[in-house]
């Protein structure tokens, strides 16, 4: 069996007496879409922060593409190919959609100590950025300031920024959160299009989206992964039903 792209072992993080992340073990295989689900307060946000490099774990380690990245910061992880979207939409609101994506391209095109050529007319940045915007369905909205995009479009823009870094792994934090039915369907279609081409970790509340998209699902309850398996296995798992699905 090949080494997983992302390998998390014994990851733990406490806040005072609360064990928010408790000996988490997680493998994400190259090419798969791996969903992480769990009830509110299960520690999803804490886990994501540690995966993305915003929070240092107390114990355990994270290996990514064969290297230990446990102590690397978020920017370095991104440069190694670890991209993310945020639960609460995070874009450059006063920049246009194209500017947003061009910045993500720029971040992965060597250093930015380039003081002279105008970045906004730099085809090396604009052309790939435009292509990614087309890919996520925002081609026609390229010149609109991000602040003026609809909520769903801003979420698409986040995905575009993540893809534009040409990542090896996409960490998507509740991509359909706060969306209407139609917007949410559009996002699921977009992610379905990426499935198989990109390796994705999908942290999501929306069970329809999870069961549509995920190859495998890990269930997080009180900071622990209590089960990992296919959608069918997870549905059938009595522990999961008791802890989680039963509540709905």
């Amino acid at each position: 069996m090949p080494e997983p792209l992302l390998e998390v072992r014994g990851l733990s993080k406490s806040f005072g007496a609360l064990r928010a992340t408790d000996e988490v073990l997680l493998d994400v295989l190259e090419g798969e879409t791996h969903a992480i689900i769990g009830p509110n307060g299960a520690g999803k946000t804490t886990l994501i922060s540690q995966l993305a490099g915003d929070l240092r774990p107390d114990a355990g380690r994270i290996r990514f593409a064969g290297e230990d990245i446990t102590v690397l910061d978020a920017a370095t992880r991104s440069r190694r190919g670890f991209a993310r979207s945020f639960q609460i939409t995070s874009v450059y609101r006063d920049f246009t959609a194209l500017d947003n994506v061009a910045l993500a391209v720029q971040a992965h095109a060597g250093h930015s100590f380039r003081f002279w050529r105008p970045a906004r007319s730099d085809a090396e940045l604009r052309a790939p950025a435009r292509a990614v915007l087309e890919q996520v369905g925002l081609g026609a909205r390229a010149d609109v300031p991000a602040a003026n995009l609809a909520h769903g479009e801003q979420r698409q823009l986040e995905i575009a920024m993540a893809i534009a870094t040409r990542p090896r792994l996409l960490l998507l934090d509740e991509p359909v959160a706060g969306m209407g039915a139609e917007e949410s369907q559009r996002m699921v279609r977009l992610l379905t299009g990426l499935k198989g081409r990109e390796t994705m970790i999908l942290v999501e509340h929306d069970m329809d989206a999870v069961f549509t998209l995920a190859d495998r699902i890990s269930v997080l309850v009180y900071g622990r992964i209590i089960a990992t398996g296919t959608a069918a296995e997870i549905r059938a798992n009595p522990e999961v039903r008791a802890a989680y699905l039963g509540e709905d």
Partner: protein
Amino acid sequence: MRFGRRRIALIALVLLLAAAPPVAVLVGQPFYVDLLRRVMIFAIAAVSLDLILGYGGMVSFGHAAYLGVGAYAVTILAVYGVNDGLLQWAVAIGAAMLLALAIGAISVRTSGIYFIMITLAFTQMLYYLGISLDVYGGDNGMRLPMRSQFGGLIDLGNGTQFYYLVLGLLVLVVLLVRRLAGSRFGMVIRAAKSNEARTRAIGLSPYRYRLAAFVIAGGICGLAGALLINHTAYLTPDIMHWTRSGDILFMVILGGIGSTVGPVFGALVLLVLENALSNWTEHWQIILGPLLVLVVLFARRGLASLLWRGEEDA
């Protein structure tokens, strides 16, 4: 190249400034040439602050430090008989950049009120250092022994020549800062100002870029210091007083942060008003203060938002 309102405002201002000396002579008010030269020197300092404040989000409350270092560098060299202008000004810029590197290395890691306080504290330290330097005039200050020399090419003793040199440098600095702001480098510091977490998440570590911007701004302000000491021909530590930092900050806010050309208008309005009001009453700050509050309240993006609606043309 599109002729946006901002560009038109800049061209109009440059033409007016270029026409000022002959007009002032014509109407028998040569004093105004002096005032406008001072305005333009401070405008250079304000535009350099706008690079880090407007585009980089770094509210430096210590920009007078670089003005001071530039002025001290020129004066100290002159005291030891080094009067070559190019060398003096290069040293002024270099010393200001080194100082900015030292202050920036510590302060740029912080943000908000901490950044303001650290930059202020460093500048106060330099201010008191200036007071204690008795060899170079201490508290009372000293005359600049001789203005910077440019081998007969430009004579700074000639008010008009000096005036047009400052105008030329101001235009260069405005164009340079605009260019920087639109480059890849500029996009990084603007992105980090707009959304730091997002910037890290796409793989950019803002610190080095912010520090570089801080150093560049320091260097430009060092040049302004070299110009200012040639303008006043009298060095005092007051050049680094915290109220001076406040003045420069106000020029930027009044003119419109992140607009490059706005701070030039900010410097013009602030210094001309200060001059006019202080001729009229010694309590001129009572009038100037509320005026500035009104501008900040009703024109969020300063004069730039009134003159060209803050529109970008890059």
